[in-house]
């Protein structure tokens, strides 16, 4: 992970949110308040627009700025949560470039930030149910010598699996928890946007490897 890759990743996330805005809103409509698509879109559009003005000496700098901007423009639950994830992730990356193992630990900081703030655990039907397996898969791949592209691809697959695994869960955190048993059978919107974020990382890393 380096500055250029961080920029490309964030842009890829913005593109994904633009493309899947309606899906996220639809999912949030079923068990929430129908704003997750608009929230993620507003947040990452702002990031994409400001990105050229992000002056940073490290990949972490870009990601921390991304997190701060998310906090200041998104609102809702996802704003502080994703904002904190990117800020924590960014703060943990204070070198111009990071190898997969280091990036894995930064991703872990991001997840910790979300956990601390939202007090949700795996199985509560939140973004954590995509993030946690993604992190585990990334770590395993990196530990066995996988490069960023390989580790990210594994993470994206795991995130999507985790996302799908939220369908049968009963929500215990966030708005969906108000539905009690009626939240079962629906995919969590935040887990879905998390899967999009990891898929954007995998695509970005794969393209970078190809270009190299």
């Amino acid at each position, binding site marked *: 992970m380096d500055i250029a890759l961080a920029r490309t990743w964030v842009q890829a996330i913005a593109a994904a949110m633009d493309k899947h805005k309606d899906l996220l809103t639809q999912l949030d409509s079923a068990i929430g308040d129908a704003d997750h698509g608009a929230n993620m879109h507003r947040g990452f559009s702002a990031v994409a627009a400001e990105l050229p003005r992000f002056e940073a000496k490290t990949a972490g700098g870009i990601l921390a700025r991304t997190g701060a901007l998310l906090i200041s423009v998104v*609102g809702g*639950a996802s704003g502080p949560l994703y904002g904190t994830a990117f800020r924590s992730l960014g703060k943990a990356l204070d070198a111009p470039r990071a190898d997969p193992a280091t990036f894995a630990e930064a991703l872990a900081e991001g997840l910790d930030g979300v956990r601390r703030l939202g007090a949700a655990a795996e199985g509560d039907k939140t973004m954590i149910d995509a993030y946690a397996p993604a992190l585990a898969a990334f770590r395993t791949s990196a530990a066995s010598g996988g490069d960023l592209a390989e580790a990210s691809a594994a993470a994206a697959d795991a995130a999507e699996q985790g996302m799908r695994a939220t369908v049968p869960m009963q929500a215990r955190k966030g708005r969906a928890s108000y539905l009690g048993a009626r939240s079962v059978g629906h995919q969590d919107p935040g887990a879905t946007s998390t899967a999009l974020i990891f898929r954007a990382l995998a695509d970005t890393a794969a393209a970078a490897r190809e270009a190299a």
Partner: protein
Amino acid sequence: MKKLINAPETVLDDALAGIAAAHPGLLSVDPVDRVITRAGGSRPGKVVLVSGGGSGHEPLHGGFVGTGMLDAACPGEVFTSPVPGQMLAAAKAVDGGAGTLFVVKNYTGDVLNFEMAAELAAEEGLSVETVLVDDDVAVQDSTWTAGRRGTGGTVFVEKIAGALAERGAPLAEVAGTARRVNAATRSFAVALTACTAPAAGKPGFDLPDDEIEVGVGIHGEPGRRREKLRPAREIVADMMAALLTDQPLTAGDQALVMVNGLGGTPLIELYVVYREVAAVLESRGVHIAANLVGDYVTSLDMAGVSITVCKAAPDLLDLWHAPVHTAALRWGM
């Protein structure tokens, strides 16, 4: 989607411009920071009340800014908590040096953003207390969940704590009273139709013509369960049972009651509902000391009603009756 709007993206800014145009002597609107404050700026020495939350609940919160109630409100996008920067801007705009009370409805987004705002405000030297409103008994409270939602009770908290602040009470007392009001207040809502969020463009759920959603919140989400539509008397009986099971009121108690339309329900139906609510309380010997019947905490165009009951001690009632002058509540001045 049928709405009198210019575009889904501009609803909030257009409505804010409308609020500014409609209440020039009463409210100041900062369209950039999206902050609504009392016209005339800060009031040195007075504890200030700042609230906010997603839009789509009008008149909440902007309609409750004014003498005897809120000092500032910050509206987020529709159904989306505002951002910490807005809350900080609001707190700074009205700060009178005597402390700030954040009135926060208990939703993950609102709580997290207000927490961040409170940290930022503390860094800037403001002393901030927060009261969490969580009055909705349709949601089971537990340390493992997001907890109860904040709904109609917000109006009681803002009015009563606002009156106390207006009288010059210190922050700890204003915050303590706000928490007492919340602790004494319960709400329950039913929906006859879903609402349509502008960004979604279609109703949040489909409901057959003879069914209602029971135990809904104010964000268009489905409720705890679906039931057949029945006469108002029976629906109200169930709602009151839920309220009174959670917080029993007994003969001689004084109650503050609100029968609140969710946005698409006409006043004539709210009066039909109020009549049933009053009958239930009367049959228990509870005295309704004051009431509100109308649209105060809405969910866009949702048809439905919420009932809020506060078991009100004499000092709270006295504060309820104190003068208030806002866009949505006004008496005594």
